[in-house]
C-alpha cells in the first residue's frame, strides 16, 4: 500500500470508529480492534508525569468486550448522545504492516433533553495494523486533556 492509500484507509478507520460510538453501534465498534488490541484512557497529567494509573485499561479485546457488555448490561450512567470531532490524522510507519496514528479529538455530549456540552478533548495515540485487506486498531490510547471528568465516563471516548 502506498503512503497515500494508508492515509486514506486510516482516515476511513477513524471515521468509522467515531461513527460507531456516536451511533451507538458497539458491536461494529468492537470489530475495529484486533484480538490482541489494548484500549486505554489516560489522564494527560498522569501520562506526562509517567504515573501508570489509567481511567480505563483493557489489555486485550476480551476486556474491551467486557467494557461494552457492562455499558449495555450493568452500569448506570447519564442518558446522552455522543458526538466526536476528530482532527487531522498523522500516520507514521512502524513496520511493514503497522503504523502509528495520532489525532486530536473533541467529544461533545448532548443530554436526552437536547443540551450539548463539551465533554472531553484530548488526543488519540494509536497503533493500527493491516490484517488481510483491512486496517484495525491494535492499540488505542486516549490521552485526555479534560481529566477532571464531568460526571462520569461511561461510553468509550
Amino acid at each position: 500500500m502506498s503512503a497515500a492509500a494508508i492515509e486514506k484507509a486510516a482516515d476511513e478507520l477513524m471515521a468509522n470508529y467515531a461513527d460507531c460510538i456516536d451511533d451507538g453501534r458497539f458491536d461494529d465498534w468492537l470489530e475495529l480492534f484486533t484480538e490482541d488490541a489494548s484500549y486505554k484512557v489516560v489522564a494527560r497529567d498522569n501520562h506526562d508525569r509517567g504515573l501508570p494509573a489509567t481511567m480505563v485499561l483493557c489489555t486485550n479485546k476480551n476486556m474491551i468486550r467486557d467494557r461494552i457488555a457492562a455499558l449495555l448490561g450493568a452500569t448506570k450512567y447519564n442518558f446522552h448522545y455522543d458526538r466526536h470531532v476528530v482532527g487531522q490524522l498523522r500516520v507514521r510507519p512502524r513496520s511493514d504492516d503497522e503504523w502509528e496514528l495520532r489525532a486530536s479529538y473533541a467529544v461533545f455530549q448532548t443530554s436526552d433533553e437536547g443540551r450539548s456540552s463539551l465533554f472531553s478533548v484530548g488526543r488519540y495515540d494509536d497503533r493500527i495494523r493491516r490484517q488481510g485487506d483491512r486496517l484495525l486498531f491494535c492499540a488505542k490510547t486516549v490521552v485526555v486533556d479534560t481529566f477532571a471528568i464531568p460526571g462520569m465516563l461511561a461510553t468509550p471516548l
Partner: protein
Amino acid sequence: MVENPAEGSVDIPEVKWSRNDYTRVPLWLYHDQQIYDAEQERVFRGPVWSYVALDVEIPNPGDFITTYVGDTPVIVNRDKEGAIRAMVNRCAHRGATVRRELRGNALEHVCIYHRWCYNLDGSLRGLPFRKGLKGKGGMSPEFDVAEHGMRPLRVAVHAGVVFATFSEDCEPLEEYLGPKVVSHLSRIFHRPIRILGYQRQRIRGNWKLYLENPRDMYHASLLHEFMSTFGINRFTHEGGLKMDDRHRHMIAWSRQGTDDETEFVELFKTNRVHESKMKLHDASILKCYREFDDGVTLSICSVFPNLVVHQIDNSLATRQVRTVDKDEFELYWTLFGYADDSEELTHHRLLQANLVGAAGLVSMEDAEAIEIVHRASAGDPDGCTIVEMGGGGPIRETDFHINDVACRGFWSYYAELMGIEPEGAVR
C-alpha cells in the same frame, strides 16, 4: 466538642427537623447558598481535621502540593526541617493565588503579582521596595511583616495520611478519628506506599450527597450491578458498619466469598432487583489477592468531612471531597499500591483501577445517583429524604449490610457543628 457552634458570621435560615433522630432530612439543605456559606465557616474552617495529602507526595524538604480544604485553596509543603506545614494559598497583599503550580519543590513561595515572598511556614519573608525608591513611596513604616503571612493551618499526620485544621481548639487528630479509624488507617497504610496516579471527577451535586453515599450501605448491591453480579460486594456477604463514638466517621466492610451464589441470585430475583445476564470474557479483573489477615476484601472508610479511603479487592485509593459551590464538588482520587508490590501485583492494582473512579465499573453510578438527586430535589422546599434503613432512634453499628445508619451519624455531627440540632437530638 463545639464551643459555640451558632456563633458565626454567616446567618442561616431556621432548619425544621421533623424528627430528632435524622430519619428525615430536609432536601433544601442541599441547595441553600447560606447553608453552603455557613458550612465553609463552621465545618471546613471549623473544629474538624480535613484530609489534605499523603506524606509520600512531599518526601523532601521544599516539596509542595496545592490542594483545597472545602473551597479554600491550601499549600501543603515540607519545610527545611522536614516538618509538614499547611497554609492558605492566598497572598496577604491582594489575595492572589501564591503557588499556582499543582506540585513542585521550592525554598520559598513567591506571589507573581508584586513578588511578595513567603517562607515554608507561610510567614511573610519580605516584599520588594518596602521602603520605596530614593526616599519616595513604599509601604507605611508601621506595616509589620510578621503580621501578614499566609494563614497557617495546624497539621497532623497519622500513618502517613496528612490532615489539617483551621481550628485552634480542635481535639488532637487521633482523638478526632477515634480508635477504630486510627487502627483502620494503620491497617491500610501498614507499610510504605507507592502512588500509582490520580483521577479527578466533577460531580454536579451538593458535597453532602457524597458524604452520605458511602454511609448508605443499602445502595451498594442495588445501584452497583457489576459489583453484586460478580460478587465483589453483596448484601449476602459477611459485613457491616463500624463508627466512632460520635458517629461522624464510618467504616463499611465486607468479606467476599462468604455467601451462597444461588441464594443471592434467588434473593435478587424475588426482590425484583436484577437478574444479570452479563458474563465476563476475561475474568482476571475479579481476582482478589488476600492482603489482610482479617479476611476483609472490601472496606470503605469515610472520615468527616472530606475523606474516603477504599479497599475494593486490590484497588486502594483515597478520595478527597473538594467543594466547588453548593451545586458541585470535585472528587480527587489518589490511587496507590505498596512500595514493595511485585510487578504482577502492581499490574493487578492497575487493572482493578477499572472498578473505581469516573469510569469505574462499580463507582460511576455514584456520580449519576448524586446528580439525579441533586437535580430533582432542587425544587422542593418542603420535601425530606428518608433515612430509615436499619431503623431509627439511637445511632448504632451494625453487623449487616442493609442499612443507612451512618448517614444519620453524618447528619447528627453536621447539625451539631452547624448549630442546627433539633430539640433532644440523637448524637
